[in-house]
């Protein structure tokens, strides 16, 4: 297991996401209201660039003609075939038990901690004053 310093927290404001090359893997880091989630930028269905799809909510309805949007901003739709994934868990909506996008646990670490190691900061210049998103795998 290795801890990778991905980016300063300020680089991914709430409601946005960005794809980084982390340890050779393309990983999308999503900021959902200050919580960070990592998702492999590869759809488990056929390999589309998942994190480049539409960020959306979950469309729900219990009766014909009922249309509601809940959990706004917490789902991503693969740009290739439109499969919906829960950004937090990677779970697919249509095959929740079978198809799951690869997720990566993230944490926030201060620059002061990061400089002590053992972190890998491949491309990120670290300063002690800042907070960083860290991914471990």
């Amino acid at each position, binding site marked *: 297991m290795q801890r990778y310093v991905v980016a300063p927290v300020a680089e991914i404001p709430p409601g946005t996401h960005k794809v980084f090359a982390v340890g050779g893997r393309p990983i999308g880091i999503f900021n959902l209201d200050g919580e960070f989630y990592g998702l492999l930028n590869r759809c488990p269905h056929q390999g589309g660039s998942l994190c480049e799809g539409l960020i959306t909510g979950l469309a729900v309805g219990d009766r014909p003609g009922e249309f509601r949007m809940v959990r706004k901003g917490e789902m991503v739709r693969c740009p290739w075939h439109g499969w*919906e994934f829960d950004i937090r868990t990677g779970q697919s909506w249509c095959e929740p038990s079978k198809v799951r996008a690869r997720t990566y646990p993230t944490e926030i670490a201060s620059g002061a901690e990061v400089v002590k190691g053992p972190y890998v900061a491949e491309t990120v210049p670290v300063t002690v004053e800042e907070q960083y998103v860290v991914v471990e795998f």
Partner: protein
Amino acid sequence: MSCYPGAIDCDIHPTVPGIKALLPFMDDYWQEAFVSRGIDGLEMASYPPGAPISCRADWRPAKGRPAADPATIARQSLDVMGTAFAICNPLTGGQVAVSESMGAAVCRAVNDWISKEFLDKDARFRASIIVPPQSPELAVEEIERRAPDRRFVQVMIPVAVEMMLGRRYYWPLLAACERHGLPLGLHAGSLHRYPTTSNGWSSHYIQDYVSHSQTFEDQLLSLIHEGAFVKFPGLRVVLIESGVSWLPGFIWRAIKTWRGVRAEVPYVKRSPAEIVREHVRLTAQPFDAPDAAAVMRIVEMIDSDEMLLFATDYPHWQFEGDRAVPEGLSAPFLAKMLIDNPIATYPRLKEKAT
């Protein structure tokens, strides 16, 4: 020795011999109307009476209409097959008439005629309630009138009606079917309110006939995506004479697209494949596959041994001799198709006729 002892034939077509046979079942107004206006025939354009497909040559009488009396049908089909029950689906112009009221009058008369001339004459006959899809309100009235007679086991309309079938306009009809535990049978055929294909009128019958499975797909998609099976969880739909081999490709397209675009219809929470396997049944005449190997592959792709219902489609010309089922079906599969699936689909068949 009969071919399929105890089989339940889910699609046979007694023919109304002519308007005279229906007049006793009409009120004074409609009796006078049909006689004075000289209206007779009432054939469906989908099944021209003289066309080879409308009656197999060895079943066609020297004169008059084929399949017009119970004794002939028993001799030519029921006795040969070993049929325990045969569900009568008379195809008549009542279901396509431009006038809702006239259509309803014909449907009422046909239902009463079939009851007296077939159901009362041979205990093996059962029937669909023929209703006028031109008016869901009048269709419901007819269901309410005939449903208490438990020998009527289904409600039947042509598959191509005046609108997409899942629309709310038809919900009272769907609700009545569910309420009475009667499957809704969609039979090949059209009211011809629109061209027979979505690109316009075809030049030849061959086009109408081959492309008709598309219409079944249209109506099935409408029922699924308007949420009809969510609204009416007890609703069963039987696709009659739709063919079978189109189904696997349809199911795949329906699943694939639902996975990507289901947010358009968020109340459709289950895969269309699951919905179809639970709510939809198909008569297996015709099957539309070339040989036993293809039949086996298609059955495998449908991935359910509960969906297919035995049918001869008598007197329509779908097979020769007594080969009413395709080769390639395993014995257990065939047993379900001949007896178990029809009984599960039409629960009234379990009841003792009174």
